[in-house]
């Protein structure tokens, strides 16, 4: 009986460790090879906290260190979580700067291997290669959870079950929260969040920390259930097993993780019955081979993200879909209608930018009137996208100014620029394909307490209420462009034209007054172009100021009120579109002479 309880405990530990990795890999799209060593840090911390102080030890352990602080078990758990959380910062602080994925693999790999080696060497803390023994088991009100006896083992297994359920609940809750939504956006597109006014650094650091903290907490329970451990318990193989569980089960799917952990957890005992001692290498062959086959045949895993049994009733259809006119009405009431003809919303003064020796923008000055649609046109290489980038802050101008409603915003970061009221769309649309259309738009809405972990934890009712408002606003934006019926569909399933409409809805949802659109019709097949152009006009109907880069003059004629003609990085002329194309010198510039 105790043997089975032990197996159950191991499986539950594996589920918990994998669920925490799934938070990082599944939701945030970041790989970590270091789960095992962080697990170990938690285990050793808890052990050292809980072991009795030197003078109280009756028999020193034969191997390793037999003494500690003598605190109760729950203090051990808390210390383990805190220490591991801090240790994770060692990885995460450099990691947030490293954009390329393989660097993170290498960084966490170095941390795992180096960290494990440090554990083997730091005899003061871990007892060196011999580790620690004699860790007292949990004792709650006189009831022993020691795994040395059958009944204690069963109690420990049940306790682990509770712990695992709590961890799964946390993982699920975080994943489905606005915070989780931020992470899921981060995993597909690195530069999207700043453009929507949300800083990605905090969520990234936090998710690394939380993943580590959970691993550390589980480590504490491992220490209490095992009573003894050595650094070998926390080697690279374990990290790889955890990764395998997540990948085989299904990245981003907690149900898949449970399945994967049960499978891998049962693999060794089952193989042991059949093969005896050969079980250990065969187990590795099985899960290594399964990993290869899974990536070749079904990379999303056994239970892909979003599939699986729906535990909570999820709206699959939006019910009664709002009409476009109703949406227009609602959004008009909410947005501050700007007065056309007032001072220009956006002013660009003498902007310059050079790359190496090449001048991309050589002193561009123009203004974008409030409440109108202005197009930037010009032949290839005129510097239009570079100007966009300088306005939104993703590039710093070499000289010149950008004024928003008269206020100097030159050189501010993209997040700050967005918060001041300028949002942009991207030429390559940058829709997050793995989340729903609705989530794509909701992430753009400002002022979401749910993106903040402390609000999420301590003010759940307020967060829930605000989330409802955010959802309503997002649905209104989607309805305006006629795509609300697809709200609960994964964005990856939409046609490109519809994705472009969702991107415009997302832009509207930012509540920014000035909207920059980068090639809104590009890539849209002829049948859907009209819909996209109408969508852009609706932005103006709502009183927004729109500036767009569009290469097709044919479309600009239909879309824009005014245009700015650029060539070789300087402004040649401004005026209504018709005025500009009537000028021969501009035609000569554009088409060659």
């Amino acid at each position, binding site marked *: 009986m105790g043997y089975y309880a032990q197996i159950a405990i191991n499986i539950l530990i594996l589920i918990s460790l994998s669920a925490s990795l799934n938070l990082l890999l599944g939701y945030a799209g970041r790989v970590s090879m270091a789960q095992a060593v962080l697990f170990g840090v938690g285990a050793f911390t808890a052990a050292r906290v809980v072991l009795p102080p030197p003078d109280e030890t009756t028999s020193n352990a034969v191997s390793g260190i037999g003494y500690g602080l003598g605190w109760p078990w729950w203090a051990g758990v808390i210390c383990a979580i805190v220490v591991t959380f801090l240790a994770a910062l060692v990885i995460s602080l450099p990691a947030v700067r490293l954009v390329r994925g393989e660097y993170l693999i290498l960084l966490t790999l170095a941390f795992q291997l180096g960290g494990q080696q440090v554990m083997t060497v730091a005899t003061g803390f871990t007892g060196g290669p011999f580790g620690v023994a004699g860790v007292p088991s949990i004792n709650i009100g006189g009831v022993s959870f020691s795994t040395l006896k059958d009944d204690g083992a069963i109690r420990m297994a049940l306790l682990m079950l509770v712990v695992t359920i709590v961890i799964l609940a946390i993982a699920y809750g975080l994943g489905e929260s606005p915070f989780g939504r931020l992470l899921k956006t981060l995993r597909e597109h690195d530069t999207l969040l700043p453009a929507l006014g949300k800083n990605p650094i905090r969520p990234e650091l936090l998710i690394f920390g939380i993943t580590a903290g959970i691993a550390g907490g589980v480590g504490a329970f491992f220490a209490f259930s095992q009573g003894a451990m050595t650094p070998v318990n926390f080697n690279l193989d374990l990290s790889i097993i955890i990764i395998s569980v997540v990948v085989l089960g299904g990245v981003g799917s907690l149900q898949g993780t449970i399945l994967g952990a049960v499978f891998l957890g049962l693999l060794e005992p089952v193989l042991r019955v059949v093969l005896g001692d050969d079980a250990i290498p065969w187990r590795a062959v099985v899960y290594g081979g399964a990993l290869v086959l899974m990536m070749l045949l079904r990379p999303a895993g056994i239970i892909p993200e979003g599939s699986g049994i729906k535990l909570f009733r999820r709206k699959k259809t939006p019910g009664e879909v709002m009409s476009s006119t109703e949406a227009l009405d609602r959004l008009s009431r909410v947005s501050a209608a700007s007065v056309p003809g007032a001072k220009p919303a956006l002013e660009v003064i003498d902007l310059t930018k050079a790359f190496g020796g090449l001048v991309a923008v050589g002193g561009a000055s123009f203004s974008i009137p409030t409440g109108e649609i202005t197009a930037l046109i010009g032949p*290839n290489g005129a510097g239009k996208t570079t100007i966009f980038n300088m306005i939104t802050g993703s590039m710093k101008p070499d000289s010149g100014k950008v004024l928003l409603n008269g206020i100097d915003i030159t050189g501010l970061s993209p997040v700050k620029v967005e918060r001041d009221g300028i949002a942009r769309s991207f030429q390559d649309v940058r829709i997050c394909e793995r989340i729903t259309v609705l989530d794509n738009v909701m992430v753009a809405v400002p002022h979401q307490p749910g993106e903040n972990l402390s609000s999420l934890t301590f003010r759940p009712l307020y967060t829930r209420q605000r989330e409802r408002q955010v959802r309503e606003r997002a649905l209104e934006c989607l309805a305006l462009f006629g795509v609300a019926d697809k709200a609960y569909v994964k964005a990856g399933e939409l046609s490109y034209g519809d994705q472009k409409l969702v991107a415009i809805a997302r832009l509207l949802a930012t509540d920014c007054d000035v909207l920059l659109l980068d090639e809104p019709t590009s890539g849209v097949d002829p049948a859907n172009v009209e819909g996209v152009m109408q969508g852009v006009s609706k932005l103006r109907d709502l009183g927004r100021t729109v500036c767009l880069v569009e*290469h097709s003059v044919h479309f600009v004629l239909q879309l824009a009120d005014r245009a700015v003609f650029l060539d070789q990085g300087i402004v040649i002329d401004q005026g209504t579109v018709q005025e500009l194309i009537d000028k021969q010198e501009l*035609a000569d510039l554009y*088409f060659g002479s």
Partner: protein
Amino acid sequence: MIGLNGETLTVDVKNLLSTKGLTAGYGKRRVITNIDLHVLPGEIVGILGHNGAGKTTLLKSVFRMLPIDAGVIEFRGVSINKSTSVKTAASGMSYTPAERAIFRDLTVTQNLELGAHALKERGKLGERMDEVMAIFPILGERKSQLAGRFSGGQQRQLSLGMALMLHPELMLLDEPSLGISPAVVNSTFQTIRDLTKERGTSVLIVEQNVKAVTTIADRVYVLRNGEMVLEETGEQARQRTEWWHLF
């Protein structure tokens, strides 16, 4: 017409290249839809259109660097839908991209040698290089220099030279005017015309610079937002004054 082995080929009036209903893109993005075009042997055909109209995608599809979603491409009367760029490079087509059309970290000689990567009779390599360096003397003068050090115009000459190494029947040129100063654009296009008319090579030029192309083209097509909106002769294009609504 001069074949790959230097022999004279008889020309027949059938199309050298033709596409029917060509539709292609990147994943979800449909970039070109339902394109019908053809190129006769010895013809210079221009493809005009705004930035992002699908011109580069069209060339890449023809050269088989991109998968086709629908339609047929025929080269010398045979479908090349299933072909790959490795094969088209070796069978009489050359492709010169708009940007980064050379290997910056290699010398002129090495670049030209790579241009002839698909050349079967390696013995001819030397004479082909001499030939190209005769057409573009600057390449001969600076043959051991790294290509990345050259100016835009010189890099363009090198890229054309690379394309000529295999004596292609059909040259696909993507925005040859890009990166060259306007003063040099005309002479570059004249060179293209002279070279290709001399050898009977067909050329499919993609360009935004309407003037430069219409000066030398026998026929032009206009692409707008992935669709073909106009086909006319070079003469008609030279007479045309209103281009805005086509872009």
